């Protein structure tokens, strides 16, 4: 599904990613953990095509196709979804209208007709039920005045609507109370299939109790310094990141 080789990226001439190698297969869940400043959010931004970051070498392939030269919307059309740590507020544009536009732009790019209104409504109903989203919420302006939890739930709702091949959840657990966390995690678990893949980026182990990863990678100083299974997350929770740093530096 996703294959990253020797990825280097910088922002304002400062190297942030210094040779990332990562392969995520369909049906898998990968967690990327690491201390603050390790480059976790940069990695997700670079995969999604944020032009603030300059990719200086390496490759990013999605289903065997190099997407590293594509615009962010083209990567989205190819099936990349990034759940934002800080979703943006857009006054005057309702959640429903925003998601309709997103879906139809994606269909347009694939040469498909717009989704018929009745199918769209049906899908919105299904997915909002799945994520226990109040219907009233859908006619509110996107993210405007939403609580932290509502914003994150709205991100996962959009993910459910867009049905990406690769979903990257960037610090989705931050700002969530335990109930919201459970709802969001359940949503992700229900959307998981053998045909898609999920990359969870998190600082803490908490979310991984609900979304159980097949692999856990530890990112430090722009490189993946350790890879293990779900038990690695528990070990990090217990011991912190210092031993990883020491190991990496020695």
């Amino acid at each position, binding site marked *: 599904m996703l294959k990253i080789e020797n990825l280097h990226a910088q922002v304002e001439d400062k190297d942030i990613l210094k040779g990332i190698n990562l392969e995520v297969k369909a049906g898998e869940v990968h967690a990327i953990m690491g201390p603050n400043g390790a480059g976790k959010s940069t990695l997700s931004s670079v995969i999604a095509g944020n032009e603030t970051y300059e990719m200086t070498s390496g490759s990013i392939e999605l289903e065997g196709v190099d997407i590293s030269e594509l615009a*962010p*919307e083209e990567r*989205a059309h190819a099936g990349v979804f990034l759940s934002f740590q800080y979703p943006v507020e857009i*006054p005057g544009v309702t959640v429903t209208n925003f998601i309709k*536009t*997103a879906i139809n732009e*994606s269909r347009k790019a694939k040469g498909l007709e717009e989704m018929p209104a009745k199918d769209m409504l049906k899908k919105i109903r299904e997915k909002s039920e799945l994520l226990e989203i109040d219907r009233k919420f859908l006619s509110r302006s996107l993210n405007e005045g939403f609580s932290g939890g509502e914003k994150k739930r709205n991100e996962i709702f959009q993910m459910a609507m867009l049905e990406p091949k690769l979903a990257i959840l960037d610090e989705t657990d931050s700002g969530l109370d335990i109930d919201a966390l459970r709802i969001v995690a359940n949503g992700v678990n229900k959307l998981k299939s053998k045909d898609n893949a999920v990359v969870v980026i998190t600082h803490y182990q908490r979310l991984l109790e609900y979304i159980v990863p097949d692999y856990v990678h530890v990112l430090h100083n722009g490189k993946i310094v350790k890879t293990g299974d779900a038990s690695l997350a528990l070990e990090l929770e217990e011991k912190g990141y210092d031993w990883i740093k020491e190991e990496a530096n020695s």
Partner: protein
Amino acid sequence: MELREKILSSYVAFEDSVNINSDLHEIRTKALQNFEKLGFPTKKLEAWKYTSLNSILKEDYSIFPDRDSSVELADVKKYFIHEIDSYKIVFVDGKYSSFLSSTTHDGKDVCLLSAAFSKDKYRPVIEKYFNKVAKQDNLTSLNTAFASEGAFIHIPKNVEVEKPIQIINFNTGKENAAMLQPRNLIIVEKNAHVQIIERHQNLNSNAVLTNAVTEIFTDTHATVDYYKIQNDNENASLVDNTYIEQQKESTCSVHTFSFGGNITRNNLNFYQKGEHINSILKGITIIEGKQHVDHHTLVNHIEPNCESHQDYKGIYADRSTGVFNGKVIVEKEAQKTNAYQQNNNILISDKATINAKPQLEIFADDVKCSHGCTIGQLDDQALFYMQQRGIPKKEANALLMYAFANTVLESVKIPEVKKRITKLIANKLGVNIGFEL
């Protein structure tokens, strides 16, 4: 001949067309003298520092446009908010078009200023209100000197006008270039309510310079909602001078949508003559090319316990230039004033310019006055967010600009006007988004 000389020498000919033995004409003659003394504004005047009329004053305007032109409804229908039932006061080249208009005298007067000038029964009203709140500056004086036609709206007390009134000025441009001086007088008595939509439209590629004056009187507890749609072609310039006098407990809102034209100057002046008055001034400006839009607002808080709310949003592309000069005066007596002013601008191009100047003069000591002014670019992170959801850059940009302007749109009370403005914004931004913005 210079335009000023041409105007002065045309006055004799103008006098042939009006009743010169009247108090009204005395006002006109005095105004002409005032204009003669002051001339056109130049950049040397503080209030005109960033707006030069030089380029448009060079045109050889006809002062009395051909008055025999007519237009077909089919050709101009799109300039009306035609989706709703409304009263219409329509002028073609400065002359009233009964064919395109729909006026009334049924329980209220929605008609012509020329009719109000000529009929005895209107004399007391004209005497009481005409030229009473208008400032005697150069361009207003010029308009007053030639004041003969425009909309006359008089809403008696307790009348809620059941449908909006549209005032539309068309210029057919059959002459080489035309100068128009429309004059509107609007009186809304106690507890009455009216909604007005105003538009100027050039139908030709010849130049037109419109120097409009509108006086609005809102009596106790009256409500006026006024919408100015400025989306003219690149040969049309407009100086809009609007003066509003409010009595106690009245509410008046003016929304100005400036989307096109050559040079557009809005002089919007509010005078609060009682307590518990609310004045609302809002605007969206979206321009490109070499267009220029200047908003000069004045809110004069004279009495205690009043409010004013200003919110102007501007988006400037290419080499376009904008001015926002928002003056708020809080006089010594005007304690407990709550004056709010917000002006946010986005420059899309490196070559675009905005001159923004909040100007607060506060002489009372127990007031709440806030102002904020920003000039910036679109938020890259927000753009990336929308692109990440599959929305192409151009559409994402448009959505962001729409969101930026939305605080102004929100307060538009006529849904069809809101719809039209959103459509104009979408056209302006060159996008066709899958839902009605």
